């Protein structure tokens, strides 16, 4: 497994597992491919035949409504057949292993697996298994694995930033909140640094910062006001409810006081700074409603772009 497992021998994308290690050209070409798909949504007939006759299996071992739905819409707009499988945690209790499940679905002639799993690295395991068993024509798209990666979210975040801000090499981007548990943060950090963003900041309490996160090429701030100063883009992360009280944080109220995004704190960023959030939002915990609904929020366009980006990813890997 020395070669980047998501690229084939020609350097073309065959799986999308993480943004880490993807060449900037590959990332740019995904964003460029997404451009025309955005306008498809504005047409009367919102379909193209790129994946006609292909079967996309949404393989969700962890619950998700939004991500699964956007993948489903993206695949349907590409004319693919979509099969949704919410496997949850019950499959292992029935005795079937992850790879047994995959083998069974391959036997049903799956072309693309869209995988979400609570364990970091599960999509890598599946991709490696397919490659090792001569089934590299079956593609894997990581739809979020543990704390590791959420590459299509990272790509849609990049697409959104590029849409509003153009040049990555002039930007200061702040990512705020629970970085420790966030696959969204990790994927965005890799994407931004690969595309040459000179300053990526992470802001949060020490309990929600992973060890040696600076090694990913970010500056760490614990004071949100200081961290927001001069930012072009502010990305708020979702705080899972089970982490709001306990050893990591005393209460959601105290978190909001220190790290919730309010109009007053946003005023420290640049005047034209945009506000992003991967959703679903906890209003009053990580973000104040006037900000979420304000004119600088691009949270809903993110969702729209997400469909186009996922169409781009699936059409590219299916062609390689």
């Amino acid at each position, binding site marked *: 497994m020395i070669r980047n497992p998501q690229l084939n021998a020609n350097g073309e994308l065959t799986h999308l597992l993480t943004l*880490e290690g993807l060449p900037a050209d590959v990332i740019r070409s995904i964003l460029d491919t997404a451009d025309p798909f955005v306008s498809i949504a504005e047409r009367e007939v919102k379909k193209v035949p790129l994946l006609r006759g292909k079967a996309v299996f949404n393989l969700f071992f962890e619950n998700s409504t939004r991500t699964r739905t956007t993948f489903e819409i993206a695949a349907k707009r590409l004319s693919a057949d979509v099969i949704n499988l919410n496997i949850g945690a019950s499959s292992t209790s029935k005795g079937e*292993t992850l790879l047994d499940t995959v083998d069974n679905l391959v036997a049903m002639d799956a072309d693309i697996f869209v995988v979400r799993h609570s*364990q970091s*690295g599960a999509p890598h395991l599946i991709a490696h298994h397919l490659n090792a068993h001569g089934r590299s024509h079956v593609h894997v798209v990581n739809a979020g694995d543990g704390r590791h990666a959420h590459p299509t979210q990272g790509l849609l975040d990049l697409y959104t930033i590029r849409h509003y801000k153009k040049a990555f090499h002039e930007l200061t981007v702040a990512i705020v909140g629970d970085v420790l548990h966030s*696959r969204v943060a*990790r994927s965005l950090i890799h994407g931004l640094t690969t595309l040459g963003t000179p300053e990526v900041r992470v802001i949060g309490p020490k309990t929600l910062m992973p060890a040696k996160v600076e*090694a990913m090429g970010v500056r760490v701030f614990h004071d949100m006001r200081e961290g927001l100063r001069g930012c072009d883009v502010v990305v708020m992360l979702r705080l899972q409810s089970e982490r709001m009280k306990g050893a990591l944080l005393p209460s959601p109220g105290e978190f909001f006081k220190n790290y919730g995004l309010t109009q007053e704190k946003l005023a420290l960023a640049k005047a034209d700074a945009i506000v992003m959030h991967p959703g679903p939002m906890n209003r009053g915990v990580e973000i104040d409603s006037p900000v979420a609904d304000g004119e600088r929020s691009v949270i809903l366009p993110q969702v729209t772009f997400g469909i186009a980006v996922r169409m781009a990813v699936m059409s590219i890997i299916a062609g390689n």
Partner: protein
Amino acid sequence: MKIEIANGRLIDPANRVDRVASLYIADGKVAAIGAAPSGWRADRVVDARGLVVAPGLIDLSARLREPGLEYKATLESEMAAAVAGGVTSLACPPDTDPALDEPGLVEMLKHRARSLNLAHVYPIGALTVQLQGTALTEMGQLSAAGCVAFSQADVALLDTDLLWRAMQYASTFGYRLWLRPIDPHIGRTGVAHDGEVATRLGLPGIPTSAETIALSTILTLVRESGVRVHLCRLSAAESVAMVRAAKKEGLPITCDVAVHHLHLSDVDIGWFDSNTRMVPPLRTTRDRAALRAGVADGTIDLVCSDHAPVDDDGKQVPFGEAEPGVTGLELLLPLTIKWANEDGIELSSALAKITSEPAKVIGVAAGDLAVGQAADVCIFDPSAWWKVERGALSSQGKNTPFLGLEVQGRVRYTLVGGKIVHEIDA
């Protein structure tokens, strides 16, 4: 049966021997070295020219998976792996199912091992009933049944009062305690060293403090009680420094490291290679350097395989769900040689770490080739390369991060009690 091992390079670290000499074996014991005893007529002559003739290796931690875990490995497969790796004595941790906490289980294991007539097996008894950390086992009966030491294997002890009492009780009767420093709280949900790699891969981390806090607790209680403790499987630079200072202070401790920790770091996790999932976790290259230096200067007394065969079902799952463990009996020798070669350590000094030093900790008369000793011998070709592949391993466990690696040092003959129990052609 009289066996003459002719003209090999005899390395016997305990007796400071390193020269070309023939070894004469009769009645299961070393009969003479260099010159044949009078009236010598060998039943068999082994041509050992170009080979190293060393004491049989002693592995302080090798799981045979019996009783109860036979789907991972059996006594037959793992005892074959032991002698294929030149290991003639091994201690097996109590983390079986059920745990080795009753004399009957220990006697059965010893009986099964003896009937195979391969390596000597020294069971390590459970320190607490079912390794649950609440009540001491009957250490007297377990010792009588053959336990050479007592441990909690990889199970952290929640109750430090019980640890203290266990030390007092064990020292009353001179029982040995082998303890692995693991904090029961910090890093308990972790699966990899809490550093750059775990952060990048999104794996829950195990900080170094999970080891150093427990180590500090053990050292404090050793200072208090004067009990002799063997510390198992250090993984961090800070731990090596603490042990070095404690030894300087004069505390009665010894310690070991698993051989794979001398070669790998968390970077080797790569793209979630579940064969690198182990306890303690692989730490940074800085830690690895400190462990190597610790073995070289004697802070770490010995090296073991920490053999833990895991079946494919236990490894072909996402990293965090994978069962920890590395198969290692057959790699103990080549990986020790690799360390010696890379760090410029004399072969004799390196072999001491897997022969005479572990013999002292177990407290058995083995690990050297003095005249009159039982003839447990490992004869290997120090320059032969071989590739670590599934098919090349006798162990039922194929779970090693070294798969695909070419290693140097190939065992040609293994003798236990003067009998050739393993033999391969050049």
